């Protein structure tokens, strides 16, 4: 399996991740964050040994297995070396080799706090949802979440990027060139797309429209996060945190600058790994064996697949 990569995956160099400090014990733990769009794996032992990001796709049970194999290979350890695995994200229940499942809210808070210890508010804008998390001393004290509407999520950006014929990755930089910011009044993705098309018809510049779109998302996300009362320091995470235009628009609404982790996709997986490390350490300190779930690192098959194979043989 050496040199083996899954298509579309990306190994994150350690120095770019930031200093996510955990307990200094000689245990290997992994955090697996299966988001709606991307799967993130972090292998940790005192410091991050490896981090891999791959697309989730429709078969996330299989993806989780492949991404963790890649991360283990990168960390140069085997699965048997792992003391504990915590799964998070919306696909957390589909990680058969995880010892524990935690929600991404708790894991994000832990991960963000490890990088920015003074964080009070984390705003996570992911592929299909966005959330505001109020944090006190690394613990969640309140949260708010939007998971029913594409507005204010990465999906919204994807739809608009397609309508404007630009790549999602370049939206942020492009929007910074805007001379004026048109008001996008619809926050419904479908209607906003129509609105964008009508702005195009009026020969509005693409960068201006992009700035308008970022402003619309920022307004929405800010309004939601304000329900937990945004306080300094504010950290923005999730795939959309990579969009510099959106982050700037959000700063405009909040009124001061926000922090973005070096790799904003990874905070959930980092948090999951650190929570796993806490559990392992508590057990070790007490001298009790670490309670594990029955581990099954095998490629998950789907019921219909297994059935059809059975029929053939």
């Amino acid at each position: 399996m050496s040199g083996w990569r899954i298509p579309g995956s990306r190994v994150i160099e350690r120095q770019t991740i930031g200093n996510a400090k955990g307990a200094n014990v000689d245990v290997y733990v992994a955090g697996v964050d299966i988001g709606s769009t991307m799967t993130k794996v972090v292998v940790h032992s005192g410091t991050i040994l490896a981090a891999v990001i791959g697309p989730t796709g429709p078969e996330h049970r299989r993806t989780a297995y492949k991404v963790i194999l890649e991360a283990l290979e990168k960390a140069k350890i085997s699965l048997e070396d792992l003391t504990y695995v915590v799964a998070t994200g919306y696909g957390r229940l589909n990680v058969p080799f995880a010892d524990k499942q935690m929600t991404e809210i708790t894991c994000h808070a832990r991960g963000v706090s490890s990088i920015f210890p003074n964080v009070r508010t984390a705003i996570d804008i992911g592929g299909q949802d966005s959330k505001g998390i109020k944090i006190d001393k690394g613990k969640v004290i309140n949260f708010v979440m939007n998971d029913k509407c594409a507005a204010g999520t990465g999906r919204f950006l994807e739809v608009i990027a397609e309508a404007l014929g630009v790549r999602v990755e370049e939206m942020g930089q492009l929007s910074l060139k805007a001379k004026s910011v048109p008001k996008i009044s619809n926050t419904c993705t479908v209607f906003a797309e129509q609105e964008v098309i009508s702005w195009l018809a009026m020969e509005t510049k693409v960068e201006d429209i992009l700035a308008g779109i970022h402003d619309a998302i920022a307004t929405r996300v800010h309004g939601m996060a304000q329900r937990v009362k945004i306080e300094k320091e504010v950290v923005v995470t999730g795939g959309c945190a990579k969009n510099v235009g959106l982050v700037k628009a959000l700063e405009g609404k909040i009124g001061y600058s926000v922090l973005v982790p070096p790799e904003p996709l990874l905070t959930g997986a980092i948090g999951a790994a650190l929570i796993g490390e806490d559990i392992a350490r508590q057990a070790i300190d007490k001298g009790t064996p670490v309670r594990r779930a029955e581990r099954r690192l095998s490629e998950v098959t789907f019921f219909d697949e297994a059935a059809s194979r059975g029929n053939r043989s």
Partner: protein
Amino acid sequence: MPVKKRVGLDRVQELYENRDMRAKELKAEGRTVMGYMCCLAPLEIMSAAGIVPIRILGNVKEPVTRADAHIETIACPYVRSCLDIALKGKYDFIDGLVVPHTCDNTYALYAIWSSGIVPITPKYHHYIDGPHMTFPTSVEYFDVELGRFKESLEEFTGNKITNQKLTNSIRLYNRNRALLRELYGLRKQGPPLLTGTEMTKILVACRVIPVEESNELLGEVIAEIKNRRAIPTPKTRLLVYGGEIDDTALIELIEESGANVVVDDHCLGVRSFWHDVQVDKNLIHSLGARYILNVACPRTYKQRERGYKEAMDNRFGYLMEFAKEYKVKGVILYIIRYCDTFELDAPGVREYFQKAGYPVLHIEDDYSVTTIGQLKTRVQAFLEMID
């Protein structure tokens, strides 16, 4: 071979799954069955006229397919669900429809339902106007309104509602309330003797049978639960506050995530039964006072006294008392989308509890099982936050 009659929780399960079963049996026996909505319908008067009142429940498992032609999609999803199943003929067995003015959505439901578009329009329908304030004049007004309702029922049934009949009826309902309070008492100890999921089923079962049968059933259930030996493991104790909860899906989701719902103030919960009706000289006035002053539904506004704090204590102090008495660790506000009645109060209630140190999870739902599943992450994160 005679079919063995099911009793206690077994009977509860049967009634929970077949909600119109008993009403249809009674109708076949010649009884008059009427559907009613909300906590504001004076059931005592209906029973005193010899009517079997059953609560109109929606169905979170049934997708709304017919109602949209008659009511906007921004109307209360619970009301849309009720209308939808009525349009599908599932409430064709009711002889009458009684709707109090809880909110404008119930008014719309009443108007559409009684307009002749359901397969069988109820022979009798009555709308009760309920004042939204709690001034002495409000109760006075409601007394007159209840008098009008009483006369209308007498005319329809041909049965005179005597003072004696009304007294007996009030006593039966007060007995029912006492039994429910006793059952809630079994949830006070930690761990509770029954789960919130079981309680939800019991509350539904009690609303779809006559009050005498409900009293008998509750007696059996209490005896059965008191005899329980196996005490479940302690979990995070929660209070659930909100609108219509007539299905276990949400409570099950909460309890499967590692909590126990130990007290619930929703349309079928404490709001509907906690306070007795006083038996005294003017029974209609006792009823009016109980329904307007004691049913703590946000549709009735208890006017501000001396400032905001006192107004909040006035309106939600009872909820805080429940939280303390039942030793809850957190509060879930379950608000049905587009329910202005609850939505407008939600920020205030949230703050009221948070200031008192209770974590609050505010969830907004579409009154549908498919969307309840999406709440899982929120509920789990909330419990992780409390632990």
